[in-house]
């Protein structure tokens, strides 16, 4: 029942992330992104759709420079991050949370320790190398686990958790970074439909509550339409759609996917799709 209006594109303000003529060419010659120009604003919940290989992952990874653009500029909070030296780049990354399709947890470590890796870039090196986390950071990590609803799992090994719970740990880890931006690379692709919707609801809610710019890669169109404030469509590394969910028609779908919707592009909808997701998305 969120009352926050989605006013991001209309009210002029400084973008949180901007792409300026950004291109990525991989060493094998493949052009994964071609001349992208985009602005993303604080609090926006953006879903990026496209076929596999369309450049979704590459786009998201340019924001924290897990992928280095070969041309153009990427700005985070106004700062051009291209060519930033290592130490400066780590400071930028410290405030960008990221979650992954395969959760990327250290399976043998405890849940709490996994969440604490979100604090690494916020603490002096001598502390992290000795494993001496201040009490307030441990409290913060526990609070993050509480927010994703699994505080009782803190001292369990990560690999004893179910897939949905592991993705929550990953979200808690991102939250522990106290981020301005949340990146999610196919966050629900390894989950069953009900769990997938639950995770998307959690992400949506966090984005609202923390005014987080959230960029999510999704394959399923119905899910994108359910949760997104704004949809970005990529095809062959080029921007082919940028607009609201209402603007997403069958034609724009075919423009992105170059074919009609097939059953496997749609995740079976959960019966109790949440109110705030619907009101935020449509």
């Amino acid at each position: 029942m969120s009352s926050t209006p989605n006013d991001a594109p209309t009210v002029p303000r400084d973008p949180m992330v901007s792409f300026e003529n950004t291109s990525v060419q991989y060493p094998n010659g493949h052009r994964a992104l071609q001349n992208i120009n985009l602005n993303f604003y604080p609090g926006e919940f953006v879903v990026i759709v496209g076929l596999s290989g369309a450049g979704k992952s590459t786009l998201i990874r340019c924001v924290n420079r897990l992928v280095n653009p070969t041309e153009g500029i990427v700005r985070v909070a106004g700062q051009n991050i291209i060519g930033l030296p290592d130490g400066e780049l780590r400071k930028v990354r410290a405030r960008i949370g990221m979650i992954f399709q395969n959760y990327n947890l250290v399976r043998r470590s405890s849940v709490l320790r996994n969440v604490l890796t979100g604090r690494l870039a916020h603490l002096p090196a001598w502390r992290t190398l000795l494993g001496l986390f201040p009490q307030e950071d441990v409290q913060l990590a526990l609070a993050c686990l509480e927010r994703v609803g699994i505080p009782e799992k803190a001292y369990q090994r990560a690999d004893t958790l179910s897939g949905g719970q592991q993705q929550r740990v990953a979200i808690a880890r991102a939250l522990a970074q106290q981020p301005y931006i949340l990146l999610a690379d196919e966050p629900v692709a390894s989950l069953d439909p009900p769990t997938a919707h639950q995770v998307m609801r959690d992400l949506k809610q966090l984005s609202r509550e923390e005014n987080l710019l959230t960029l999510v890669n999704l394959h399923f169109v119905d899910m994108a339409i359910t949760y997104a404030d704004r949809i970005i469509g990529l095809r062959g590394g080029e921007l082919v759609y940028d607009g609201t969910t209402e603007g997403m028609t069958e034609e724009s779908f075919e423009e992105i996917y170059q074919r009609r919707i097939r059953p496997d592009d749609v995740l079976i909808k959960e019966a109790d799709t949440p109110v705030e997701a619907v009101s935020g998305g449509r």
Partner: protein
Amino acid sequence: MEDNPAHSARPSLPPPPPFPWQLWAIAGVVFAFLWWSAVETGVNWEAFREGFPELGEYFGRLLPTSENPWPLDYLPLIQEKLIETIKIALGASIIGSALALPFALLGARNLAAGKWVYNLGRGFLNLVRTIPDLILATLLAAVFGIGPVAGLLALTVFTFGIVAKLLCDTIETIDPGPMESVTAAGGSYLERALYAAFPQVAPDFTAYSLYAFEVNVRAAAVLGLVGAGGIGANLQQSISFMNYSRVGLIIFVTFIVVLIIDTFSTWLRSRLV
């Protein structure tokens, strides 16, 4: 039910692949090399035939008999030397493994700070492992004097080489996901190694250290032959005095100790991972 399902029921089975001639070729090459090495090294079947009975006779002399019993009053001396042997092996395993850990974390390809760091590290590791431990012990005994220090150092180098190499290879097979997430959260190179890589290989590291310890106990038992401490010195002395009952006793006691340590260590390793 059909009478012959193999013929009638599966008409679309592909033909079986032909027997790979490459296997015959490889077998041929292996036998050719074996033959060639036998000729080159001058294998003498006569010597084999004459030597074998003597072998039995020699080993027979190591066993205790009523007129030639094992000198049990010699046991306390053996005990002291055996403990020294184990100390050498244990010390070398701990120090060598401790040195190997940071080196492996630096030298693994997926973690290494750069290509030249990786190549340098790998080159050094290969160099370390080309030196046989007995030759190293001989050299070190000449430098540090006859005694356990030379043995300890030689086996430390050996442990370092083998644990670092095995650990490096293991680190290169770990799940890259956690390292990516540490990087994404702003983690440094060392934090990647410590928070993403090390927890994944910790059980393997322990297992490799234990394995090195097993090998070291056996190696330490013969180090004395080159004057590098441990039970081997007594063994060699007894052999040169042709005191066979003593040799038998030393070998027997060493065998029991090695067996116990091996069994325990293997059991411990099987409980890891």
